[in-house]
């Protein structure tokens, strides 16, 4: 198990380097210099001042040195400052991270909790009414633009039915609420976005849950379990699901980049102040530092998610955890 872990970590190093390289290259592609932001509105900035600034920022150095310098800063989680308000990018990110993480984790839990039973029931009665209905819904969820579903949800549940608020995290009078009420208020605001994200995420996962479960139910050890006279429920859950969950864990990990990407759209549609919204605003404002910082962080988070999923799988599957046969 430790051997596996070490090998996985070693394999990450080139990918990490690759990510930073690509991020850096994209950054350098951007027209204009970082110095422009600080100096362009200052008519008194002389050529010397500009040159001094460039030296300070290391912009006069050859590219590979700049890269290494940038790499060092990234390793310290130093992403410089936002062009718009001069605050540290890291500060912005830390402010927004909890919101995005909360929404994504909530959606992840819901997706997992619903997709697995869905997949099990559909696999047990393939072709049945339940299976067909869920297949239709899944295809729609798969083919419809997420932001459109969000807009529809807003129009129907928010505007027409008035059940949920359509934007932001807090109601106008949130300041006056006690802690509990404020928490519930936030939750109320999050129901629509998390709901839509869950629906979209379900579309992806339940197909795998279903096919994974069907694959497992075809295996010989299921036949053995039945031949042992075990009640069908035990066969399905202990023997069937126990094995089917393994690939589902991997899929969950692999769907992390999609969730993070989805946050951009969802937070924009619902006006939620999360990392995704931060990214979108930064892109529209050409705030390069923030943009590239988030692109890099997004990639790092994806890697982290994959690693966690792999580790969970390695731990759950005795064939990897306990080591190979003699």
């Amino acid at each position, binding site marked *: 198990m430790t051997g596996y872990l070490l090998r996985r970590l070693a394999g990450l190093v080139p990918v990490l380097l690759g990510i930073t390289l690509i991020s850096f290259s994209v950054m350098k592609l951007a027209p204009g210099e970082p110095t422009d932001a600080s100096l362009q509105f200052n008519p008194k900035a002389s050529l010397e001042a500009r040159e001094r600034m460039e030296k300070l920022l290391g912009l006069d150095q050859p590219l590979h040195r700049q890269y290494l310098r940038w790499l060092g800063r990234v390793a310290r989680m130093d992403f410089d400052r936002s062009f718009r308000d001069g605050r540290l990018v890291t500060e912005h990110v830390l402010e927004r991270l909890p919101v995005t993480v909360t929404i994504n984790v909530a959606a992840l839990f819901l997706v997992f909790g619903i997709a697995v039973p869905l997949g099990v029931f559909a696999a047990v009665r393939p072709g049945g009414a339940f299976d067909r209905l869920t297949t239709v819904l899944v295809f729609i969820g798969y083919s419809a633009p997420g932001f459109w579903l969000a807009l529809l949800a807003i129009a129907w549940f928010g505007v027409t039915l008035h059940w949920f608020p359509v934007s932001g995290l807090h109601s106008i009078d949130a300041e006056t609420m006690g802690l509990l009420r404020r928490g519930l208020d936030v939750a109320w605001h999050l129901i629509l976005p998390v709901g839509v994200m869950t629906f979209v995420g379900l579309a992806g996962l339940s197909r795998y849950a279903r096919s994974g479960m069907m694959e497992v139910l075809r295996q010989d050890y299921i036949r*053995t379990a039945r031949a042992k006279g075990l009640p069908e429920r035990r066969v399905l859950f202990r023997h069937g699901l126990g094995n089917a969950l393994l690939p589902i864990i991997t899929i969950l990990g692999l769907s992390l980049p999609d969730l993070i990407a989805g946050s951009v759209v969802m937070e924009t549609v619902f006006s939620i102040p999360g990392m995704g919204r931060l990214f979108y605003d930064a892109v529209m404002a050409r705030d390069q530092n923030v943009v590239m910082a988030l692109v890099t962080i997004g990639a790092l988070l994806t890697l982290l998610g994959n690693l966690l999923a792999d580790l969970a799988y390695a731990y759950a599957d005795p064939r990897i955890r*306990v080591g190979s046969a003699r």
Partner: protein
Amino acid sequence: MALLDVEDLSVAYAGRGERVLAVDRVSLSVEPGEVVALVGESGSGKSTLALALTRLLPSPPAQLHARYVRFDGVDLVTASESQLQRLRGGRIAYVFQDPASSLNPVLTIGEQLREAIERHTDRRGRDADTVALDWLSRVGIPPAQRRLGAYPHEFSGGMQQRVMIAMAMASHPQLLIADEPTSALDVTVQVQILRLLRDLQRRLGLSLLLISHDLLVVQRLAHRTVVLSRGAVVESGPTEQVLQRPAHPYTRSLLEARASMAWQAGEARPDA
């Protein structure tokens, strides 16, 4: 009275428009303490028949018809699912061909043994584990490997099959149905497993329905032999008679195929 008495058992699969008979009006019986071999080429319906006996075949594709399938007086065709579940693994146990895929890879052998024991005996928990360990030693697993916390992939093929046999025997079944128990194993291991089965059978008075395509195995173990071709019984009788003086041309061709293989391998011919 026969322990297992099958009369006119058929299994049909409805394909696209056509109906295929995997098992065609088979009748056979197994007496208490008897070893009956079911032989035939692959595709002859042997395994389907074995699973059909306790209605283990998934029933939308497969359709079962029989005059009766009586086990110790009870007709399995009309029995309820819960009755069948009590019999399966309890009084009628199975051993399958490929132990590596027949054991659940994510559960320890201890957990899988305990499941069977708790289901069909009144032993629970620590008690059940004692029974499990006892059986592991009875099937010849050396003390060093008798770990209930071990996973199936930690064992070799032969050891895995012994575990499966232990799992099947732990509830003291009256009938053991072994579907090609040695075909997936190495040749040297095959002999050991067969010897184990024979010993268990003799010592416990177990009835054994042995499915095999290997006539040498059949000759060594079985009292009676039933020959199956394309789902139908073509010949049945005392093993010696069927193998030495085959009445049906198919049996003869099976024997000849076997003999020529054995001849090439330098073994003695079965009828020598």
